[in-house]
């Protein structure tokens, strides 16, 4: 799957990607387009999933912790820290690997098999730099925004449960959300998300860029992109947690 030779080709591609653009004007024109396509267009699904996950996690926490010794505000606290520490960065990134990763791989892959990448190279354009750099930078720049949205929407979902059901009083829940807040957790989440954004965009672009053959192979490249960027995110999550929290 991830052989040494694959890693070598990936590094090679990244070297070509992170070089000076042939034309900065074109780069600055591409960047906002990619940010819109990869980042802004993902807000909807992230909002939706975060609200529902926040709601369901709140319900589960209340229903499964009936120990009277635990203070009632602990539900809010648990939700906040779960959202901050893992959900908004790692789980959201796995979701994005599916949505954005397959989009990037199939877009670049179909440009490869229809010779559009060759056409760029013939013109003397560094195709890796022109196609991949705006995607990687665009997604990385959008990640903090997406993480923030996810955290807030999760908390809104939880608050909704407190408000509309009688599982937990709203005041207790809100108190819990604010209790013993560690701002560094937010920083930690943002830092992780930057790495994950890079992983998703670059690995997916890699599989698209080296697609060959017909339309079927574009589908295969897209699947490889999602699976492999997810695996790397999971591994990287452990490494980053070790480095940043322990």
């Amino acid at each position, binding site marked *: 799957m991830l052989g040494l030779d694959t890693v070598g080709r990936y590094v090679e591609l990244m070297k070509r990607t992170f070089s000076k653009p042939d*034309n900065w004007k074109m780069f600055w024109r591409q960047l906002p387009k990619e940010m819109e396509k990869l980042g802004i267009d993902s807000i909807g699904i992230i909002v939706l999933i975060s609200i529902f996950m926040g709601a369901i996690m709140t319900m589960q926490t209340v229903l499964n912790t009936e120990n009277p010794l635990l203070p009632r505000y602990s539900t809010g606290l648990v939700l906040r820290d779960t959202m901050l520490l893992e959900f908004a960065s790692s789980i959201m990134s796995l979701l994005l690997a599916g949505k954005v990763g397959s989009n990037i791989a199939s877009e670049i892959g179909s440009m490869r098999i229809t010779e559009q990448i060759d056409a760029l190279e013939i013109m003397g354009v560094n195709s890796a730099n022109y196609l991949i750099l705006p995607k990687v930078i665009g997604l990385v720049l959008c990640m903090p925004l997406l993480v923030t949205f996810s955290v807030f929407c999760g908390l809104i979902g939880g608050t909704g449960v407190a408000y509309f059901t009688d599982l937990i009083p709203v005041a207790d829940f809100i108190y819990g959300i604010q209790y013993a807040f560690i701002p560094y957790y937010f920083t930690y989440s943002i830092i992780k998300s930057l790495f994950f954004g890079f992983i998703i965009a670059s690995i997916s672009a890699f599989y698209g860029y080296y697609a060959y053959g017909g339309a079927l192979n574009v589908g295969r490249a897209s699947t490889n992109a999602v699976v492999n960027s997810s695996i790397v995110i999971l591994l990287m999550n452990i490494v980053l947690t070790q480095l940043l929290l322990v």
Partner: protein
Amino acid sequence: MIEVKHLNKSFDGKQVLYDISATFRHGAVNQIIGKSGSGKTVLMKSIIGLFKAESGEVLYDGRNLLDMSKREIKLLRREVGMLFQGSALFDSMSVIENVMYPLQMFSDMSKIDVEKRAKFCLERVNLQTHAYHLMPGEISGGMQKRVAIARAISLNPKYLFCDEPNSGLDPVTSLVIDKLIEDITQEFNITTIINTHDMNSIMETGANIILINKGHKGWEGSKEGIFTDDNQALNDFVFASELYKKVKLANQK
């Protein structure tokens, strides 16, 4: 003029091109012909440097591609235009944006001049003006080929490569595209190389032809010799179709 000398190319140990030598003339349409899978595209892409040949020389007016640095190759590319088999238009850009793209990327022309030049190229290939702002997916295959030609000539190339310019086109449109390529070649004094296995095309434009047979150069000549030269590889290629067998028999009578 482009000269190829003793070119060899293989993929993962599987040799595709064997010791190819050929001369492609300036201001003329040169053809590489042969059956599907014979190695025409690989030869063309090795001449351009999209594939790296293991040994041999590719001389662009004396400058050897295989000795060039990456930077020199990039600069050479600005003198090269290519028409791909499937047109390879950028499908995220409109027709006119496709033609403007190389100009925006590599010239210091003002926005107005870029648009002027793009329109000039599109007019030159006789594309109807109503199509300028359509997307590539919205126009016919023949029109896509025209746009691809316009894009290929936008930077005034010295060398033009066309990989199967007729594939996917009806015979009438094919002839129109062939004629267009020939006219542009003469008008702008370009060294043009075309890959084809289309007999109509060969009989129409073939002034300087090389035949590739299973990765070897099987024959070279011009359309005048196509039916008469006594060459096994050539005869296999030309008389594969019943029609041309009949032509041959008729000629012999």
